């Protein structure tokens, strides 16, 4: 019989005799390749403070609370505050909005803030030996103070009122933002060594020049508190809305009259209306445009309506007069015209008027800053508005401004963002600073578009809405906090709704799909380009489109 021993030496199946790595590099066939590139989610892009929403939500979902909090507070130190009062530009931009409603980002932010109650903020790595004054302790001043301190500077906060917090404490009613939340944040800053000096105001007693003498730099964030004149007859008979809120915040829960009117359509108007309603008033909001043009947070408008606040739209008070113990308000009916500079339809007079009778009328048509302490050299023109760079810098190199003083009346989150930017600008001048994690140092400006999301991975599900605390259960009575935090299970379920636009939340889809097993895993996909044939399946499947598919000859 012939010798078949050579046949027996063959393996039974076609299998490489050597380990295959390096034998046949099928990756050489590739002319396109996948690259993992984190990009900006539209929520982060819309956020004035640029909070990396998908990133901190992912950490939260993994139970990494401290990392989630530290990630968040790299951009905004006060999630418990913005989680309650932010107008959440993020939700309006959310790629999930057209699918089944935006992610409940503000509720998740509050969840983070409340869950992190026991945690401290990240402090400085070392001391710079420089000293910075922060004037004003509203959201801009507190944020500036935090990032200055984190950067290694000694920080002294000067506050005109008896307690720090500014608008957060004296302008936003307790039912939206409990004072205890503000206290906790101030305490956290105090724990980092930030010094608060209260009862001292910028002015004759404490000039800008004196502060510049005592410190290496000054950040002014005194806000916008002065009522804007409407120029109507009998205006002095009206009460200032913001002042009333401050009075209530100080514990004077008095109703100035049964029939109340609030003039304006912004957040202050809603706050005044809802506080008056809580104290038993019959409240009518007079607004010169319509519901669609109101600058207030839509939820607050809806809540005011639920509270029983009446709205008279297209109504502009022209005159007020005292009459038999009551106030007669002459209101002109308006109509909508062409859009103005803000993009909203402009109210135009019709000439038609109506007389309405109230016991008290509040003005909440916007506030302006007190610019008296600033020399003409810092203004755009003598007697005019301050000349402020986007980083808060002024003509005086040692003075920076932040918050409403820099922008005009805006939101808490914009003030926080301005405070951080001013602090960073101070450090750029004085030295010091804080380390940025890699993601923040290399952040892409490229925003993920809705069409880039792979909806196949997301079933439609209604978003989690925070519930209302029953009036009887509210801490602090009728003015106590109205909105409940969401439960942990609801938070986790809501985080699952996040498309994670442009952020790798380690879902593993690419790993599962790669037909060439050319993806290995190390807290995210690692491509073995020796064996990646460039089929592109991983890129197509990637739910949040972190994996881009680029031409091989481009450097990506």
């Amino acid at each position, binding site marked *: 019989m012939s010798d078949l021993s050579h*046949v027996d030496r063959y393996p*039974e199946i*076609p*299998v490489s005799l050597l*380990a295959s790595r390096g*034998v*046949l590099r099928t990756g050489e066939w590739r002319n396109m390749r996948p690259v993992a590139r984190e990009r900006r989610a539209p929520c982060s892009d819309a956020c004035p403070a640029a909070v990396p929403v998908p990133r901190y939500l992912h950490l939260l979902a993994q139970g990494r609370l401290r990392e989630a909090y530290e990630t968040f507070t790299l951009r905004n130190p006060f999630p418990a505050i913005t989680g309650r009062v932010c107008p959440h530009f993020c939700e309006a931009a959310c790629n999930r909005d057209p699918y089944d409603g935006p992610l409940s980002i503000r509720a998740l932010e509050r969840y983070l803030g409340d869950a992190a109650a026991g945690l401290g903020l990240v402090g400085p790595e070392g001391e710079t030996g420089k000293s910075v004054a922060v004037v004003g302790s509203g959201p801009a001043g507190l944020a500036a103070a935090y990032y200055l301190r984190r950067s290694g500077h000694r920080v002294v906060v000067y506050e005109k009122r008896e307690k720090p917090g500014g608008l957060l404490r004296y302008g936003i009613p307790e039912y939206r933002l409990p004072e205890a939340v503000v206290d906790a944040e101030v305490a956290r800053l105090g724990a980092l060594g930030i010094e608060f000096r209260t009862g001292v105001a910028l002015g004759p007693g404490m000039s800008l020049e004196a502060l510049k003498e005592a410190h290496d730099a000054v950040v002014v964030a005194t806000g916008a508190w002065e009522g804007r004149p409407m120029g109507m007859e009998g205006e002095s008979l009206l009460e200032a809305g913001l002042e009333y809120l401050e009075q209530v915040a100080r514990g004077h829960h008095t109703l100035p009259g049964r029939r109340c009117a609030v003039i304006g359509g912004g957040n202050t108007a809603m706050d005044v209306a809802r506080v008056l309603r809580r104290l038993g008033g019959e409240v009518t909001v007079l607004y010169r445009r319509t519901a669609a043009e109101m600058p207030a947070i839509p939820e607050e408008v809806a809540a005011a309506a639920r509270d029983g606040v009446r709205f008279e739209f297209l109504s502009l008070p022209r005159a007020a007069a005292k009459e038999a113990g009551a106030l007669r308000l002459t209101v002109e009916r308006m109509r909508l015209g062409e859009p103005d500079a803000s993009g909203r339809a402009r109210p135009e007079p019709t000439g038609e008027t109506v007389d309405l009778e109230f016991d008290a009328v509040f003005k909440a048509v916007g506030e302006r800053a007190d610019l008296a302490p600033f020399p003409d050299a810092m203004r755009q023109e003598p007697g005019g508005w301050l000349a402020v760079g986007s980083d808060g810098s002024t003509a005086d190199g040692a003075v920076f401004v932040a918050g409403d003083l820099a922008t005009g009346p805006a939101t808490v989150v914009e003030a926080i963002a301005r405070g951080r930017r001013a602090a960073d600008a101070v450090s750029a001048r004085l030295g010091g600073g804080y380390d940025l994690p890699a993601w923040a140092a290399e952040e892409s400006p490229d925003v993920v578009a809705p069409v880039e999301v792979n909806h196949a991975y997301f079933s439609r599900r209604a978003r989690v809405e925070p519930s209302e605390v029953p009036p009887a259960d509210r801490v602090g009575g009728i003015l106590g906090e109205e909105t409940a935090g969401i439960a942990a299970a609801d938070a986790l379920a809501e985080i699952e709704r996040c498309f994670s636009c442009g952020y790798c939340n380690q879902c593993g889809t690419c790993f599962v799909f790669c037909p060439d097993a050319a993806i290995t895993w190390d807290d995210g996909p690692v491509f073995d380009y020796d064996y990646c044939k460039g089929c592109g399946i991983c890129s197509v499947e990637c739910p949040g489109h972190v994996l881009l598919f680029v031409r091989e000859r481009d450097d990506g």
Partner: protein
Amino acid sequence: MGERMLLTGNHAAAHGARLSRVQVISAYPITPQTTIVEELSEMVASGRLQAKFLTVESEHSAMAACVGAAAAGARTYTATSGQGLALMHEMLHWAVGARLPVVLSNVTRAMAPGWSIWSEQTDFLSQRDVGWLMLFAENVQEAQDFVIWLYRVAEQVYLPGMVAMDAFILSHTSEPLIVHDQDRVDAYLPPFRPLYDLDPAEPRAYGGLVNRDHYYEMRFKMYENMERAGPLLAEAGREFGEVLGFPYAPVEPYMIDDADYVLVSAGAMTSNVRFAVRLLRERGIKVGLLRLVAFRPFPFEEVRRYLGGRAKVAVLDRNMSPGHSGIFAQEIRAALSQGAPPTDVYGYVLGIGGRDIRVETVVEAVEDLLARDHPERCLFVGVKGLPIGPVRPDAEVRPLEPLEAEASG
């Protein structure tokens, strides 16, 4: 020993997989196979079977997943039918070329179009040349046992195997059977030891390109192992009787010793054929039966021994190969052409598309057999309006006639 139960053939097949301790099941549902995988998925869900149940999007993927799982060292099972088996075809080649002893139960079903879910064996026999072991079960007991029997042999030669179960007649008919005790099956069927370990630490390319100077030898060795499977199947069938009480063999003769005329059949129809043989014996006709249990490897020796030199052999095929004849008839003739005394083989095709094969149908075929004086390649039994006979020489293609309503208008 074991538990007497009343089960359908499909549920019995599921028990066969369970008793074989399969570790991975990957399947796609298709009538009339569905209740096999439904039962298995319930077994897995309830924890009665420790296995991974993979749902996939097609039979092609089902077999691909079986290939992957078996390559990783798991005992792997699937079940399908008709079009599903056809869609699996490419992956059937893959399993055998990779020498992975997957076992599948195929509920034999007529191929489309016209769509039919009814019994016919052409789907199964179309896989003849792929290189799988192929068995035909006749009853519910065998639907269970042949799965176990196949694993035993398949894992010795590293070749996959499939069991044919006739649609509805076997798959959906309840019969009493013995569901074996697990420890007895464990004594019969040792754990699967894969031929090659899939080791991520030492990655290798499997199933890759093979040069002309190697491929032939690999196939040669595969062929050699299929040859080995014949005696192993017979031995394992005997041992099945010793350990589990049901002896099996590649063929099963019935009233054959003195028979002048021998019928050949396979699958569930055999029960009626056996009954017909008894009736014909009562009429004094010396007829016998050879049931084919194994189709691959083909039982050449047994066929020659039992059929060689008989006056007439009638092969009853529930299948056909157009341009030739019933597939079993071809195989029997081929086997008898080598070293057997001259034997006339009459090919009968019947039961196509689920047409009933009754006892009287078989009796009619035997009466036809007795009346003929020379063998016919392919005789059709039960075509409406025609006596048993070959195709018509004057058959022609007719154009589609207009519908009546159109014609009258």
